[in-house]
């Protein structure tokens, strides 16, 4: 029903991701959103770091950059500063963005530079062997937490909101069609926008926690997610292990590259 092939490097498929991994579902969502906006392949730069999610840039036929671990946002900032007319999309994972690249992440949000981040949150470092990531929920097992995680986890969307992002939303791989709309809004939005896409990892996370295969984990995502509007009526104690989905924040704030251009223009006027 939808022609994905025009956005794919077909000789690179099949995808490297495990059977049941939700990343492919989110990837399709991104492609549908891009199609809806009507951007051509050359108008988009897709930048990714290291990790399962970051393999995505190898499969899509845009201008792509596969960079060092955690530094996707640093490279993307460079691309956006040189070519402000380019639509820059960053593909990153929970570990890539909030652990190794934690500082790049909060400062990109603080500057409010016009970059759209699609963050694949699978609660684990999948590619490197299932180590616990900053978003692994407390009590869950990982290869580096065989008796259960004793740390608290990050609220990734809350972090971006507090740091000053223009647009923050959270969706799940189960509700892929809703995710399309969030990604579309995020790309259209001027300023830093984040879409946190919850995605199941049956191999590194599900297997250690006996959550079943990808299909069962998708069902779990469905059961755990609550729309933000509905959650407002529920006491916060009951929401601790829930995923609040929907648009967290959508506001208009001054954008970095525009402000930078204004500064250049004003200094050039002065020197004339």
């Amino acid at each position, binding site marked *: *029903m*939808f022609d994905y092939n025009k956005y794919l490097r077909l000789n690179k498929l*099949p*995808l490297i991701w495990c059977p*049941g991994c939700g990343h492919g*579902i989110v990837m*399709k969502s991104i492609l549908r959103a891009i199609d809806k906006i009507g951007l051509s392949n050359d108008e988009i730069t897709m930048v990714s770091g290291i990790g399962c999610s970051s393999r995505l840039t190898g499969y899509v036929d845009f201008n792509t950059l596969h960079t060092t671990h955690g530094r996707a946002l640093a490279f993307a900032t460079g691309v956006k500063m040189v070519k402000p007319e380019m639509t820059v999309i960053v593909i990153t994972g929970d570990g890539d963005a909030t652990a190794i690249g934690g500082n790049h992440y909060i400062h990109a949000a603080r500057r409010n530079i016009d970059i759209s981040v699609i963050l694949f949150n699978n609660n684990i470092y999948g590619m490197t062997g299932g180590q616990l990531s900053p978003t692994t929920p407390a009590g869950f097992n990982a290869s580096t937490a065989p008796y259960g995680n004793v740390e608290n986890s990050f609220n990734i969307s809350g972090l971006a909101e507090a740091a000053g992002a223009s647009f923050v939303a959270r969706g799940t791989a189960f509700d*892929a069609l809703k995710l399309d709309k969030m990604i579309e809004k995020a790309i259209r939005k001027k300023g830093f926008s984040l879409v946190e896409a919850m995605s199941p990892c049956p191999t590194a996370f599900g297997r250690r926690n006996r959550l079943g295969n*990808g*299909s069962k984990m998708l069902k779990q995502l469905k059961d755990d997610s609550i729309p933000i509007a509905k959650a407002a009526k529920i006491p916060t104690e009951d929401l601790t292990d829930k995923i609040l989905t929907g648009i967290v924040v959508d506001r208009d704030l001054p954008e970095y590259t525009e402000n930078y251009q204004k500064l250049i223009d004003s200094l050039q006027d002065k020197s004339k």
Partner: protein
Amino acid sequence: MNKEKKLPIIEIKKEWCKGCDICVDYCPTDVLAMNGLYAEVVNLEACTSCGLCEVRCPDFAITVTKPDSKSKK
């Protein structure tokens, strides 16, 4: 009496299918089933061409083409 119902076309790319079961579990009318390692169409008549299998297939392995009838979707 009725004209023969036009059926959608469901293509499954075996080279890309990893047999994750997602399409089979989330098909609302049980059109698909697992055949060994790959998904397979077993009951095409029941297909309503909702496209949920295509949306949720993580491996770009399923494409659903709606029948081109003039009636409503």
